[in-house]
């Protein structure tokens, strides 16, 4: 049976109880709450017993931050002023000084993007025009640039962003997920396919044999800069698995011994010139 007004009386009973109950407002900061042991509250830097910041601006936290949210500036223990800001983020990361502090060997890195690289702007403009500057064509334009330069130079991406009126972050994001190279490669590039077809046909043996022959691990460049080794899913060997790709030519099916022999022969023949940066794909 429904009694009119019963619901509102039930609600008012709760209100009445709370009205007369003792109040629980804590008089912060006179009263401090009990917090868990590891609670740190506001983020603050730790000081040493002499009252100096313990932070040495070593950038290790900025280097490992996956979303690159950490930006800092300050003085290191030698009194040098350092800044790790966003515009310089990649440059600073490769800074020998930052490497030294992070405990890494402080040699200048190979394969560093060359910000000053000259881009054929007229050619790139022509490529963009050829596609009618439609956003659908972005991947196609990237492909053309990579074919010409071997990677996607940052300046080319900036130019694409400006010409097509697409946000730089959007262009960079699209390039980042497309399997494109964002850094230049050095010398001849040996790619070992690691697709399922190659892997189960013995691709692992090819990789270890070539790694042994060239004396470098995947992702590295040999000391003389003539050979680089990488793995990729994109060789798409299919019926000729397991396969490797040297620059743009695909070889397969290969045994570990054959692959090793193939690369060793190419290394021996002095006639093979290193791949020029602007070389086009051989037919």
């Amino acid at each position: 049976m429904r009694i009119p007004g019963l619901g509102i009386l039930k609600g008012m009973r709760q209100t009445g109880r709370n009205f007369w109950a003792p109040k629980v407002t804590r008089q912060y900061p006179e009263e401090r709450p009990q917090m868990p042991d590891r609670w740190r509250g506001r983020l603050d830097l730790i000081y040493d017993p002499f009252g100096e910041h313990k932070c040495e601006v070593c950038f290790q936290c900025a280097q490992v931050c996956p979303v690159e949210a950490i930006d800092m500036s300050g003085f290191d223990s030698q009194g040098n002023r350092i800044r790790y800001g966003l515009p310089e983020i990649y440059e600073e990361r490769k800074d020998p000084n930052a490497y030294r502090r992070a405990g890494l060997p402080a040699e200048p890195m190979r394969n560093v993007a060359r910000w000053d690289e000259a881009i054929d702007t007229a050619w790139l403009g022509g490529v963009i025009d050829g596609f009618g500057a439609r956003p659908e064509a972005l991947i196609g334009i990237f492909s053309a640039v990579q074919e010409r330069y071997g990677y996607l130079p940052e300046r080319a991406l900036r130019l694409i962003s400006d010409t097509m009126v697409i946000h730089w972050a959007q262009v960079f994001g699209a390039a980042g997920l497309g399997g494109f190279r964002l850094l230049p490669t050095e010398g001849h590039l040996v790619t070992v396919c690691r697709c399922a077809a190659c892997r189960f046909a013995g691709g692992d043996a090819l990789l270890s044999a070539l790694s042994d022959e060239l004396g470098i691990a995947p992702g590295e460049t040999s000391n003389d800069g003539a050979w680089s080794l990488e793995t990729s899913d994109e060789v798409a060997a299919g019926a000729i698995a397991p396969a490797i790709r040297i620059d743009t030519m695909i070889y397969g099916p290969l045994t570990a011994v054959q692959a090793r022999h193939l690369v060793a022969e190419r290394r021996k023949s002095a006639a093979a010139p290193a791949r020029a940066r602007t070389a086009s794909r051989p037919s």
Partner: protein
Amino acid sequence: MTESTSTLSPQIRILSGGHPRLLVGLGDAKLLTLAGYRKAGTYTGLERAVSTLGAEASIAEIAAAGLRGRGGGGYPTADKWRAARGAAGDRKVVVANLIGADPTALGDRALAEGNPHLILEGLLIAAHATGASEAIVAIRRDWTAAIARMRAAVAEAEAAHLAGYLVLGTDFSCVVTVFEGSGALVAGEETALLAALAGDRGMPTIRPPYPTERGLGGNPTTVQNGETLANAAWILTHGAAEFRKVGSSASPGTKLVSIYGKVKRAGLAEVALGSPVADVVALAGGPGKTLKAVFVGGAGGGALSTAEIETPYDYEPLHAAGAGLGLGQLLITDASTCMVSSARFFLDYSSREACGKAVPCRIGTKRLVEALDRVLAATPRPDDFGLLRELSRKMADTALCHLEARAPGPMLTTLDRFGDEYRAHAERGVCLAGACRTETVAPLLAPLAGVGPAAS
């Protein structure tokens, strides 16, 4: 067929046997030109759809044939077209998905290289049926031969008034453009493909709304796999009744299968849906040594043991067995293949190819690989097998796209069927297949819970 005269890339070897329909004449240079293709009796499907049947009747024809999406989902093509046709919007788009997400799946690449007009015809039929005025062919960017041939085919078809404005003298117009797409695994997912076509990072979006409702630029968009489109062209050319003659009653027709692994002849075959997996394996000459397991559907599929080798090669039976059709990948393994490291390989591939948008996928696949690494090193945590199952279930529950939901498939199916291999690796540091290097591994003393088939 001799290799030297074939127009296909050397990566694609067509295996004899099966039920070749789409593969008929593939590799013949005549098919690449419009004249040669028309001599083979086609574009009659498009003529029939545009001039005789009209849109509704051609969708009905596809429905009568029972064509299902060949990209792995198995969604009825006619339903998709009907949804796109019924969706409100004055600009509609159809997209041919030739991204070839998994590089081991050769079907779409073979069709695009060997018979571009067949895909184009299917695309135009789809455009006509859904009322689209714009069609986009998205091809993986490293299939350079396929891109060039597809562009040439579009130009030829436009010159012959088979595409472009006023097709075949009717009021149906459809402008076809060919674009390159990136070659990542996730790029083949339909919403990710549409994001990439919009100039964004190629990452999937939440469905619904489905692309047939709101797709490219907010317009109703039909995304179809290249093989599905080729089948649609075949149906309108030869008729629905003819199409149903091959295949199972739930899913008629054929499927292109890429067979690789420990087989005598790796390559591409076309088989009737519903034929036993054992027959498909036999097309590649069978395994060199004793067959151990068949991984159906690539990284998003699962393993069948020799006891299940008679499972019909079809959407539902494979799904019930924990595997999937995928893009037609079929990996054969023999006695010398370690199931634990195979599962780790597939998970690692999913982990590398994860686009990073969904946290359970980006971090979950990584954690699964780490747990399998601990198993392979015989240093598992007591709850590692519980973690593998629990995390896989959570990933499937919270998945943004099917790639994520199905990523743990190879691991779960092998854990159920080859639990003793996992146990030997985890507890004793021994590889039962003798494939992994285990000399340096110190065996574990306490037995672990949760290995083997899940107690349900």
